[in-house]
């Protein structure tokens, strides 16, 4: 097995046994990046020098008791990295170098993680295809003519092509789970408040979360253990103690009750292949003696509108700080007055989809329309949360497809941002409710991975990891990428 194909768990074993060094592992992955990055385009910044330097110092410390020590990873480019460009893949922040680390990055640095670089994404995390990046598109390793999903498409593609051992993404409406699903890897969206958001450029502050994208469920548990927990720099981070995710991973799932929301599984947008793959997964759980029943999330049909209103309204506020005054892009053309300055700076600095959402959101959050749209959307959220609460009174977990279809072609269906959001049908509803959910490979359709989403109760990340792990033990979907991908 090649070094870059290792999981965190395996690589850590070898490091501990001194069969490999962090430098060898890092060099191998950097070579792998050299080899396939021209075809994949997962990265926007590669910090070779920094990565090798920290690999060297980690080797010198020679302490690999922490499973993440010496393991090369990459971070989505909206996660601030001190002295390393963080652009949100926007012209607006093309040359922005943060003077601080996001909390998730400092936590990983403390564990001697090796940061390889920053991954491509939809501009400011708005999108489901990574096509709205200011820099370039990213190709899906399984089919280079297809998108990797988004907005954490670069992170998912990097993991799927073994250009890193694991990656971090952000998930506001499915941006970790959807690309993980398209790229046949594991992606976890934690409960809102489980992982600090400090230093991750906000998109919609009531829905933003940061989560791992990994090669398998065990790795996912390892990374989540490292980044979860209360942070004094994030007032919305929770003080609920962090579970021991690894310890609970292998617990028996026998007798667990799984609900299948029929509004999502049988939605007209869900393709037959995807539906069949999920139904197969349900069979697996039934074989494991779980109790699987179809249930109703009766207000699910309102989720997409509520999500879009919340996203646009909050994003229009969050993205206001990019005004060219203190940092970031500033227009180079002449301007007549302050208003003209803002128009030109923001008009030129942001791409189409970002502007589409800002304009919509600005309208929605006007005093005159606040009650009609934003407030109503929040009421829908409350109703949807109640629906979930009801479901979780009877069931331990809920299962849905992660995405209605497999990865679509690059250039396809990107004209209408609203249509694009339909990709997020099953995932964004989870952000509305703030719950944890994981996506893992559950089959294939015409050679492309299909993702299974497991949704848990608030702060039951241990539970969804356990249920996902049980499924993963029954197939080889998560390792097939090595043979079946195009690079």
């Amino acid at each position: 097995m090649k070094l870059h194909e290792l999981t965190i768990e395996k690589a850590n074993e070898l490091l501990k046994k001194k069969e490999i060094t962090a430098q060898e592992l890092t060099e191998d992955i950097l070579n792998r990046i050299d080899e396939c990055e021209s075809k994949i385009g997962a990265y926007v910044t590669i910090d070779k020098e920094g990565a090798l330097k920290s690999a060297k110092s980690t080797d010198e410390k020679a302490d690999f008791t922490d499973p993440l020590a010496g393991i090369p990873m990459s971070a989505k480019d909206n996660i601030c990295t001190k002295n390393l460009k963080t652009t949100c893949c926007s012209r607006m922040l093309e040359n922005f170098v943060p003077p601080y680390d996001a909390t998730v990055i400092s936590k990983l640095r403390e564990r001697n993680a090796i940061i390889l670089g920053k991954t491509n994404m939809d501009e400011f995390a708005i999108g489901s295809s990574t096509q709205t990046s200011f820099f370039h598109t990213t190709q899906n390793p399984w089919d280079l003519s297809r998108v990797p999903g988004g907005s954490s498409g670069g992170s998912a593609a990097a993991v799927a092509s073994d250009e890193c051992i694991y990656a971090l993404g952000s998930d506001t409406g499915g941006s970790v789970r959807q690309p993980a699903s398209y790229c046949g890897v594991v992606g976890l969206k934690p409960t809102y408040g489980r992982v600090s958001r400090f230093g991750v450029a906000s998109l919609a502050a009531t829905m933003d979360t940061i989560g791992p994208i990994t090669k398998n469920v065990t790795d996912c548990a390892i990374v989540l253990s490292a980044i979860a927990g209360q942070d004094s720099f994030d007032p919305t981070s929770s003080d609920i103690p962090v579970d021991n995710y690894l310890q609970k991973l292998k617990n028996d799932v026998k007798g667990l009750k799984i609900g299948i929301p029929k509004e999502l599984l049988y939605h007209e947008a869900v393709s037959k292949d995807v539906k069949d793959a999920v139904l197969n997964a349900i069979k697996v759980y039934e074989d494991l003696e779980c109790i699987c029943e179809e249930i109703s999330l009766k207000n699910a049909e309102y989720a997409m509108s509520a999500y879009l209103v919340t996203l646009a309204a909050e994003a229009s506020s969050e993205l206001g700080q990019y005004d060219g005054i203190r940092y970031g892009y500033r227009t180079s053309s002449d301007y007549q007055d302050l208003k003209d300055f803002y128009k030109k700076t923001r008009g030129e600095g942001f791409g189409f989809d970002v502007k589409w959402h800002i304009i919509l959101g600005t309208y929605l959050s006007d005093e005159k329309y606040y009650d009609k749209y934003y407030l109503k959307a929040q009421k829908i959220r409350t109703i949807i949360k109640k629906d979930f609460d009801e479901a979780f009174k009877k069931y331990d977990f809920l299962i849905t497809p992660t995405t209605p279809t497999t990865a679509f072609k690059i250039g396809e269906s990107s004209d209408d941002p609203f249509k694009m959001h339909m990709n997020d049908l099953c995932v964004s509803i989870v952000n509305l409710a703030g719950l944890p959910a994981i996506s893992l490979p559950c089959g294939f359709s015409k050679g492309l991975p299909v993702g299974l989403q497991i949704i848990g109760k608030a702060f039951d990340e241990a539970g969804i990891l356990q249920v996902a792990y049980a499924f993963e033990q029954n197939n080889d979907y998560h390792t097939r990428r090595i043979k079946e991908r195009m690079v």
Partner: protein
Amino acid sequence: MKYESVIGLEVHVELFTKTKIFCGCSTEFAADPNTHCCPICLGMPGALPLMNKSVVEFATKAGLALNCQIADFSRFDRKNYFYPDLPKAYQISQFYIPLARNGYVEIEPNGQKKRVGIRIMHMEEDAGKLVHEEGGSYSHLDLNRAGMPLIEIVSEPDMRSAEEAWLYLNNLRTILQYIEVSDCKIEEGSMRCDINISLRPEGSEQLGTRVEVKNLGSLRAVRRAIEFEEKRQRDILENGGTVDGETRRWDEAQGITIFMRGKGSNRYSPEPNLSPIIITDEWKEDIRNHIPELPNVKKERFIKEYGLPEYDASIITASKILANFYEETVKYYHDPKIISNWIMVELMNVLNETGEGIKDLKFTPKQLADMLIMIDKGIISGKIAKDVFREMFKTGKNPEDIVREKNLIQISDEAELESIAKKVIENNPKSVEDYKNGKEKAMSFLVGQIMKETKGKANPQMVNSILTRLLKEI
């Protein structure tokens, strides 16, 4: 037709907590530009606000002192707009559920008590400061002020004249200074005031169209701006026109208000990063217990307890430091009225002359009392005491030391005074003659001469009696 002014004020007050409202940056005044900044108050990607608990305490204290109901649950919102001094493009404020409501401040226009209602008092963050260079093609931006804690106090439209507005602002300021939440310096910007003013026919219950006036740099400016707007709006109405609802700017140099912008709509949204502010009854009571006696209560007490005239009491209690100084002096001296006289006349004079503040006083209440006792004991005369007082003000030295060093002890020696008086009589035969001819004025001239001879140290009562006796004898 006669018109009535309807005035409401929106007052912003900077709280003097040690650190900013949502980050750990210092609130120090007049620091070098952009030295008290961090990713949070600069609006950098991914920075999140952290609530400063002292701000909640200070604001609650202010709310209680202004007789407000304190909400046990309040929340932060964002006011979204673009301006270079606003780093995040939104100001974190409390729009939907403010911290405090329904308070009042008492004023006494023309000696009649009146309450000016406070509709809302809430917490918010300040913006930075833009410095425009005269004729320059660019502006400087100082973000030290960005994120400074403010309370905004919105009054009801209860004031009917510039005088009432002035009284309201004065009392508001005194209260906030008393409870030590702000220094309320309008000139330094730690207290800022916007005016809302409309006119309506006298007797009408309906409100006229409201005009907002900003950029008031002093209490005087507030008064002048109101008077200007009253006239401007009355002229429009009397000529059959209608007043436009708009925001105007006070131009201090020209003494007029100038159109700034029309009424636009605002974009508010809930602040998602901050938890609601929960104030328990216990916490509220604890804060209430730290509120000192407020100025109006103190004033009434001074009138009753020390027999001060209303005017003296209101001047002395207008500053907590002065009121404390006064009460401290009362402990050491038996006659509160005499103390008040010295404060009202001599102290106010030197403060006015030197421009110094009451908090810079070098001498202590005990020293002032000691000086008054020296007068009573005849050690110094009242006139000499004025010099001693000034010296005490300048140096903070003990009055006994000043008197000794400057050799100011009163001359009360009968023989010594008599010999000086005789000399004066000898040297001023014309005045003596005038006196004999019934010119009373001549007497005071002679007294003056004796005082001159003794450098003011002669015991005035003794001089009078000795001189009267000697003149009779002639």
